[in-house]
């Protein structure tokens, strides 16, 4: 087993699936790069290099660069998925989903149900999300709550390189459309990732820390921050269970409710805007189903309800931090 970055883990997962299954194809803007240009082929490998090396191995027929025309090529990926291929399409930044949303939620997400179970749409849309890159309002949003809202879509948010590889392979093999969220600040994160192929099932939360006092549910990059807080508070005698749901659709409600039943306290950490977020969704779930277990009000740690600001000074204030998570945990634990 070798250390691999988040970027490499995703790349390896796609490459292994492409070797295994000839119907898996990749498409997106500059996913190889250099199309029609005088210099190098595979010049980019995607804007942050995640698909680099796929085109040289699998050829331009299976790694398709596209013009900048998201409605058409994301829609083409949907159509191809419904007719025999397994596309892994890249919507470069999730912020661009507005350009092609119809093809995702009205088409891909509804085929199976609307056609009476006769259609499958084995599609993966990979997309970059999240703040921290100084990329400003139209390149920094989270938006996974929006996709979670649409029935028929599956929504995956890996929290580490190991998770990313297993969840990506699962996503490619899944017969429903999957939106795969890659936090742009995590691409260089490294950890041990097995060389062989493995899957991580959807809808099974991972407990990254276990403790008796407070349950922290966190998503994507926020899992890392929650772990940090759990580790530092353990020294202070506050035990935290950190729940990484891995997928928001399907959502492992059972594990969340069990953990809250054990600890009686809940903090939800969600980098998205707070209204109609995963934070508010999980708060509602727990309030409805585990109210009696609660020893303190539920606390949500989220971004403010604003667009993502450009200025580094403001962006740092925007993103949930370990300090904000710790304060919330101490408060619900009565140790403020």
């Amino acid at each position, binding site marked *: 087993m070798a250390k691999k970055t988040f970027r490499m883990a995703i790349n390896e997962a796609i490459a292994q699936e492409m070797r295994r299954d000839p119907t898996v194809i990749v498409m997106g*803007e*500059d996913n190889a*790069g*250099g*199309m*029609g*240009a*005088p*210099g*190098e082929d595979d*010049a*980019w490998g995607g*804007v942050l290099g995640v698909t680099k090396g796929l085109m040289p191995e699998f050829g331009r027929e299976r790694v398709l*660069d596209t*013009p*900048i*025309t*998201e*409605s*058409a090529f994301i829609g083409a990926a949907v159509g191809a998925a419904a007719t025999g291929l397994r596309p892994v399409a890249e919507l470069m930044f999730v*912020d*661009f989903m*507005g*350009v092609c949303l119809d093809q995702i939620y009205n088409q891909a997400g509804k085929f199976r149900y609307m056609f009476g179970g006769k259609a499958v749409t084995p599609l993966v849309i990979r997309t970059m999300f999240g703040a921290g*890159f*100084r*990329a*400003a*309002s*139209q*390149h920094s949003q989270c938006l996974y709550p929006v996709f979670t809202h649409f029935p028929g879509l599956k929504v995956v948010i890996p929290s580490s390189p190991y998770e990313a590889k297993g969840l990506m392979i699962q996503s490619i093999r899944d017969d429903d459309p999957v939106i795969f969220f890659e936090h742009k600040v995590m691409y260089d994160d490294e950890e041990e990732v097995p060389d062989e192929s493995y899957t991580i099932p959807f809808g099974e939360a991972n407990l990254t820390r276990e403790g008796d006092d407070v349950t922290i549910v966190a998503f994507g990059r926020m899992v890392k921050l929650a772990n940090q807080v759990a580790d530092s508070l353990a020294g202070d005698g506050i035990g935290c269970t950190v729940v990484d749901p891995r997928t928001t659709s399907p959502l492992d409600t059972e594990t969340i409710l069990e953990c809250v039943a054990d600890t009686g306290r809940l903090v939800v950490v969600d980098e998205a805007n707070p*209204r109609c977020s995963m934070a508010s969704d999980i708060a509602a779930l727990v309030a409805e189903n585990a109210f009696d277990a609660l020893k303190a009000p539920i606390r949500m740690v989220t971004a*403010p*309800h*604003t*667009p993502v*600001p*450009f*200025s*580094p*000074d*403001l962006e740092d*204030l*925007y993103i949930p931090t370990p300090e904000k998570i710790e304060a919330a945990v101490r408060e619900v634990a009565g140790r403020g």
Partner: protein
Amino acid sequence: MQLSRGMQLSREELLRAYRGMRTIRDFEERVHDEFAAGTIPGFVHLYAGEEASAIGVCLDLEDKDRIASTHRGHGHCIAKGCDVTGMMMEIYGRRDGLCGGKGGSMHIADLAKGMMGANGIVGGGPPLVCGAALSAKTLKTGGVAVGFVGDGGSNQGTTLESYNLARVWNLPAVFVVEDNGYAESTASGWAVAGDQLKRAEAFGMPGRRVDGHDFFEVYDAAKEAIDRARAGDGPSLIHVCLNRYYGHFEGDAMTYRGEGEVDRLRAERDSLALFRKRVSEAGLIESGQLDDIDREVALIIDGAVAASKAAPAPTLADLTTDVYVSY
């Protein structure tokens, strides 16, 4: 050959055009250096090499005329009269930036100047241009709206839909396709099916192709299109062929470009050098006057950078202003 209307501009107008192009060039070269030195955060897309397009198109526009720009927007901002210190401060994320530090390089706007914003969404601008043109037409302001898109952006559905809408509503709009040969690392020769002018023709719009290094060619085409729009005769398209001197964004290693491509472009396709040659050959302006402008502009850019570095950052109180947040 018809005499260039650009060559008939007054001395003052020509000097203003040169000053604008020099300001864009210096601004971008300086942002490049500062980014490399690590003082500028985020994504920055430079317009160096493309100056004649922004200035040629915008020279005659007034504040009541609107433009919508792209991610590569600094040149359009300067051409439309945005304050360069305010722009630089914005790029540095300062509180006194044109957008309070909330927008950054990709979202600089100054609505009072008719600059409706750079845009992080490729193809985000053209529909807004239809709207601005509709306002001008409905409110009878006499204004026009100009939308810049790249060769890459020319393929977005929003752009093609906007051509159609502008024609159907007979809007006072001008679509400027700035074709710098690449969208990120992808060549426009590969990604653009058909031909930009035939696209215009297919939507019933007049179209003209110009050398985007040549201020005079751009100006002439823009004047014709803007006059047409102002006269109520509807939209047109200008296909501007030009080059970018830097990468797609700062940090792009540009391995997709040909060997020596950029050096050759800088030597042979330089809008500022071409402008100097044209005006001196025609005996319109002596080079000493242009040298004076070069010196003045350099000082202005120095001042803008120094002011930006010294300027205060926004604070927590600024995070939740300008948006409805209480609920």
